[in-house]
């Protein structure tokens, strides 16, 4: 039961009110989180010039696309050297390499037309963060043939998705058309490899109410028609031998973002 406190006189009320106001001010101050956002620094040396945010323009997007073509060619070169592909698969890969060379040349012409500098080498971020680890994980593989085909399929799917993602970013609408034409060819490569790995069913069963299957290494089985719309989600690749716990190397290929873009100041 609440009782009136007879000891609470007027002076005390005033004092308590002052405390309440002070607490309010303190809470308000704590609630203000709009302070400086820069990282703290030690010492008194000059901060030096600030690094400008690199410009992501059409030339950067085209250079990035060109670097993806060179990355694909390099991976096929490494994969072919493993000697695990059948003659028919080798012919297929040879054709893909020709297509990627042509794409790189087309992109180069577009870069030239915009006054940019071509980037005729692999994407450095992808090489370091994805390709090198993937190829390194092949050591001791229990099925090198399976792994090489899966790498090729993932890479072509990644390329197709990358062009789909880049299309909407071009300022010059004419570049969208060119990118889409190249991207369509990458999608065809991907579908052909899916059929080579998994001839049937052609359509992902999930699209017709069924369940998608997995390969013996735990990686999703590829389908020539994997989805209704072209997807931009990450592409999961599993390769290499299983460790003691049955786990294999896996990585996710993501469509180009800030780290993967090849800016104008970068050179091979």
């Amino acid at each position: 039961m609440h009782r009136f406190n007879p000891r609470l006189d007027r002076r005390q009320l005033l004092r308590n009110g002052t405390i309440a106001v002070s607490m309010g001010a303190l809470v308000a101050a704590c609630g203000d989180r709009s302070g400086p956002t820069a990282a703290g620094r030690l010492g008194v040396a000059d901060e030096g010039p600030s690094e400008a945010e690199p410009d992501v323009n059409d030339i950067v997007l085209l250079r990035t696309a060109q670097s993806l073509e060179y990355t694909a060619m390099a991976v096929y070169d490494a994969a072919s050297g493993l000697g695990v592909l059948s003659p028919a698969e080798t012919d297929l890969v040879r054709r893909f390499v020709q297509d990627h060379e042509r794409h790189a040349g087309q992109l180069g012409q577009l870069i030239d037309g915009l006054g940019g500098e071509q980037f005729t080498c692999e994407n450095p971020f992808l090489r370091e963060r994805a390709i090198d680890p993937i190829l390194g994980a092949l050591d001791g593989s229990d099925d090198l043939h399976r792994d090489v085909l899966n790498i090729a399929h993932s890479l072509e799917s990644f390329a197709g998705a990358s062009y789909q993602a880049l299309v909407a970013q071009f300022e010059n609408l004419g570049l969208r058309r060119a990118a889409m034409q190249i991207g369509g060819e990458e999608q065809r490569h991907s579908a052909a490899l899916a059929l080579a790995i998994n001839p049937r069913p052609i359509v992902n069963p999930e699209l017709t109410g069924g369940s998608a299957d997995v390969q013996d290494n735990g990686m999703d089985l590829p389908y020539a028609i994997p989805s209704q719309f072209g997807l931009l989600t990450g592409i999961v690749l599993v390769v290499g031998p299983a460790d003691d716990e049955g786990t294999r190397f896996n990585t996710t290929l993501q469509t180009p973002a800030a780290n993967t873009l090849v800016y104008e100041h970068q050179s091979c």
Partner: protein
Amino acid sequence: MTQPAATERTSRRALLGAGVLGAALAAAVSRSVAAAPLVSGQEAPGLSAADTDLARFAMQLELTARDLYDAAIADGAGNPVWATIREHHEAYATRLAGLAGLSADTRIDAVYDALVGEFDGSPATAALDLENAAAATHAELLGLVVDDDVAAAMASIGSMEARHALVAAQLAERTDFDSLFLNPATPLSPEA
């Protein structure tokens, strides 16, 4: 199958490759646009009149493709892949119509009438030509449409139609790499 019919089929097929169909399509599209509830020049909220027209054109092409696969299935095309592709084209039309504030209910009759004879119980070759034409058309439209959402939808659709084409080529037992990996189709254009 009689020889004259085969000749007729070949010539119809050649229409797509030669792009002659583009003119017929353009005329058909003009009529469709004029008859549609949302007339040319009117625009969906947030979409320019030009983008609305381009989205309508693409949507009508998708509905035409859907109806052509319906005809093939009705004629006995039993491979379930055709039903799946049919569903995809309907979904594409719905997506484009939704973005443009249109009803997905108008196909291009001139195109349908010209091609429906090809979409019989064995539609693989006709499907290859149609999917190539559709993919090429979306690539072309991407060079015209300004709205980012419509562009993203067209890029997504065109990506899958390229895969449809590869599958159709395989089912048509094409083995030459150019048929599998290149798209020789002339894009259909509403301005042809």
